[in-house]
């Protein structure tokens, strides 16, 4: 297949051809098009402070949202456990969106089913759908556990999962000992991170309670060294490998509670298997006897953290996503404190190498103004990383940032963090806003770089700012999630992603005088 014998243009080139341009112009007669002047005026207006004020006064409608709903997070949590089938109790549409959404990000299949509620269920309740659904899905997909969550529809009609599952057992549809963990995840409360938390807590508490074991912190292993680690709503499969590497360097034993990296980074062996990896179900009750728990998304994992400290009586060290040098330092300190082990020399050496890389690149990053969009814990990590290398966060939008940890709100923490460095002095943190707000911010007060998910690409394009894709979802770039962003290695990956974008921009916009070979 050497040279294309035939050139068949597709929409990337085809529609700039003369005949199509003409056709488009023709079509404008239906559009009552604005004149070029009007268009320019509208654009200017959308960049004005006046419009920004109007835009920020907008209360009712959300334009270009940057959050997904609870059940989506719940599916991710369920896929963190061995042979567990996520089951969404509601009508079929949501589930099909969730599956596409997650699959488009990870480029992997997402096994998840729904009870396909219909109008009858809306009137009479969804019990029979749920029971039939359990029967069918267990027969079809042969899971070892079902992780059941609700959609807003089931919540509104007030379906009671616990009693429905009980009825299914009574009817013999599922055996008495078949595990069905469950949680309530209405879409009109919280966001995908809330749903992740609810399901993780649901699974941990369910498997623990039914095991009949008693929590005895520190007695889990003869050596007493075992640690629990939770990554939370984690869009990077690479982060799992990285955290393992770090824990292994400490030479501590550990259990990852919720590890979906197997499901979302499985090999192409020629046979699709439905379930790959995940935390072993039997390990969950044993986790109650660990030394302590390390949580890497403290805002996301609120309920789970509380459950672990209250019921398992364990020490919980809760951090936000450990990005950058300082973030990773904190991580290592937390592991060291929980396990009593010293920080390994190999990691110190790695730290030194990454610090070296940061010093190499800092001239290109210093003073760069950035806009950030993401989930709360990711943003705390990103703000820290940016300031560490002399970049200045300017606009920070967190749609689902109405959360707190130990009575400190996300916004307060973010602001305190920003206030701790002169590089944070320009920043404003917006909670509950959407990407149309961000667009206003980008247009009225321009920045050099935008960091956020693929959804930000529209606003970034309007404002002509390069977008560095970090977070969830990333639909339009391949394999970003396979590279870790946490830990020292992750800092290096983030750094090269950012600095090389800056360098690409330099080359692309060069004036002819600065097209340098060495940078």
């Amino acid at each position, binding site marked *: *297949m050497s040279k294309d014998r*035939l050139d*068949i243009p597709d*929409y990337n080139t*085809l529609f700039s051809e003369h*005949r199509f341009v003409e*056709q*488009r112009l023709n*079509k*404008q007669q239906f*559009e009552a098009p604005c004149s070029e002047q009007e268009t320019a005026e509208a654009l200017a207006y959308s960049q004005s402070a006046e419009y920004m004020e109007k835009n920020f006064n*907008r209360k*009712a*409608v*959300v*334009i*270009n*949202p940057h959050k*997904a*709903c609870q059940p*989506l997070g719940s599916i991710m949590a369920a896929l963190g456990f061995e042979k567990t089938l996520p089951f969404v109790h509601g009508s*079929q*549409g949501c*589930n*099909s*969106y969730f*599956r*596409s959404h997650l699959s488009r990000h990870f*480029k992997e*299949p997402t*096994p*998840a*089913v729904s*009870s*396909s509620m*219909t*109008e009858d*269920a*809306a*009137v009479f309740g969804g019990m029979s759908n749920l029971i039939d*659904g*359990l029967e069918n899905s*267990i027969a*079809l997909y042969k899971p070892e556990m079902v992780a059941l969550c609700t*959609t*807003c*529809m089931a919540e*509104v*009609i007030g379906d009671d999962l616990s009693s429905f599952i009980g009825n299914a057992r009574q009817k013999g549809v599922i055996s008495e000992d078949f595990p069905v963990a469950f949680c309530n995840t209405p*879409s*009109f*409360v919280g966001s995908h991170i809330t749903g992740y938390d609810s399901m993780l807590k649901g699974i941990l508490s369910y498997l623990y309670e039914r095991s009949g074991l008693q929590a005895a912190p520190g007695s889990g292993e003869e050596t007493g060294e075992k640690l629990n680690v939770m990554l939370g709503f984690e869009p990077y499969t690479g982060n799992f490998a990285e955290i393992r590497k770090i824990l292994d360097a400490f030479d501590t034993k550990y259990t990852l509670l919720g590890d979906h990296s197997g499901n979302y980074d*499985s090999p*192409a062996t*020629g046979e*699709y*298997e439905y379930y790959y990896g995940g935390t072993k179900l039997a390990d969950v009750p044993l986790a109650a006897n660990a030394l302590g728990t390390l949580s890497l998304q403290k805002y996301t994992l609120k309920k789970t953290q509380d459950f672990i400290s209250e019921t398992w009586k364990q020490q919980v060290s809760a951090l936000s996503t450990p990005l950058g040098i300082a973030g990773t330092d904190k991580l290592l300190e937390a592991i060291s404190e929980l396990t009593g082990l010293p920080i390994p020399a190999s990691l110190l050496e790695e730290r030194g190498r990454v610090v070296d890389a940061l010093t190499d690149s800092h001239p290109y990053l210093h003073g760069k103004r950035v806009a950030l969009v993401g989930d709360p814990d990711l943003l705390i990590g990103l703000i820290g990383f940016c300031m560490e290398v002399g970049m200045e966060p300017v606009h920070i939008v967190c749609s689902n940032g109405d959360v707190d940890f130990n009575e400190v709100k996300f916004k307060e923490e973010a602001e305190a963090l920003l206030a701790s460095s002169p590089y944070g002095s320009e920043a404003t943190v917006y909670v509950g806003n959407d990407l*149309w707000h961000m667009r206003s911010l980008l247009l009225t007060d321009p920045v050099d770089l935008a960091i956020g998910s693929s*959804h930000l690409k*529209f606003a970034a394009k309007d404002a002509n700012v390069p977008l560095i894709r970090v977070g969830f979802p990333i639909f339009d770039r391949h394999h970003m999630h396979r590279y870790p962003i946490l830990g020292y290695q992750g800092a290096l990956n983030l750094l090269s992603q950012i600095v090389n974008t800056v360098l690409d921009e330099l080359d692309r916009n060069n004036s002819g005088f600065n097209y340098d070979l060495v940078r």
Partner: protein
Amino acid sequence: MDPIRKDEFDSEACGSKAPKSKPCPRPKPGEAAGGCSFDGAQITLLPIMDAAHLVHGPIACAGNSWESRGTLSSGPSLSQYGFATDLNDSDIIFGGEKKLKESIDYIAGRFAPPAIFVYSTCVTALIGEDMDAVCKEAGDRLGIPVIPVNSPGFVGSKNLGNRLAGDALLQYVIGTGEPEPELPPGVNLIGEYNIAGEMWDIEKLMNSAGIAVTSRITGDARYKEITWAHRAKVNMVVCSRALLGLAKEMESRYGIPYFEGSFYGAKETTYSLRQMAYLMNDRDMERRVDRLTEREESRLTQDLRPYRKILKGKRAVLYTGGVKSWSVISALKELGVQVVGVGTNKSTEDDVRRIADRVGDDTEYIPEGGATRILKTVRERKADIMIAGGRNMYVAMKEQIPFIDINQERHKAYAGYEGLLRLAKELTYSLANPIWKLASSPAPWDKEVPYDR
């Protein structure tokens, strides 16, 4: 709550208005089913590119779906904005109508769209929001059409949603405007959504034969052009059984004859163009169409030659919904590809009949969903390639099966003569890529199977 899915629907064949035996298939609990009616309604209406589309409900439906479709626009992009009322728990308790009204007002004030479509979702339908009244009041006050689309997810499948969207067009849009007097009489294209620009390829052909398009329903459409759809001479239902009801209703209301056709494959394309000219009742046009289709077909035969050589005798499993399940078979047959398995999950009885007309006895029908089932067919039938939608793509990759995306996220246009050429090229590339050989070979140190490369 008034049932949205009226009882009469159930007694009708899916997609048709005539009484028949089988209704739109309902989803089975516990399966990995496809999209909901809300999704279906959006698929149909979102390609009205200059309108605003507002989703009334909690963040679920809009937050997980905005801007994820490959329908292209040649101009306005308002349709790509994700508008949502994002109801929270207190809205659920006290009602979201006020928020809805404010949202409509804001959109009208800021974006000045020619119309606003407002979609109900499961929750807003359940809590009994009077969307029709809010839309009507807002529309009267603002002086633009504000159109309620009552197609909450729980009423049924995607297909039903397509249909309910068609009903909204009939009720609120079609017949409310008049075309410019100089517009020549023409054809409505119904159920063609301009995925990857397919509509433009079709229009190019129609232009060359001098057939005018009256309204696009709805690929790359402008709101205004749909208001005068009732002035068309012919309706062509392109690849969407679910909008057949719209065509039937337009026939009885406005006396517009319709036909069902497809643009997948040269034969179907030629047939469709001929049919248009025939129903337009214009001899000159028929002659022009004949000349055009002859020329295009013979050019295509030339162009396809190298691909046919490679594709001949290759075996494919096709898994896609509705009309594509049979129309793509024709296209594949023209390329020499044999369809050894075909999904009938989302097909109506008519579709299945058409599939049967096109494939031999040797083809396996795959009635229910689920990756396992499709894969089984691929393996048992020794298929070379799988042709399906995006959600099955990653499963195919795990199984090292060459794959082509045929559904809404595809980035290639396969309609018309050039489309068939593109399909041939994609199939060839997908089959010929060296990665399959690498993927299916053991590592060199694995002695058990000889490493032949």
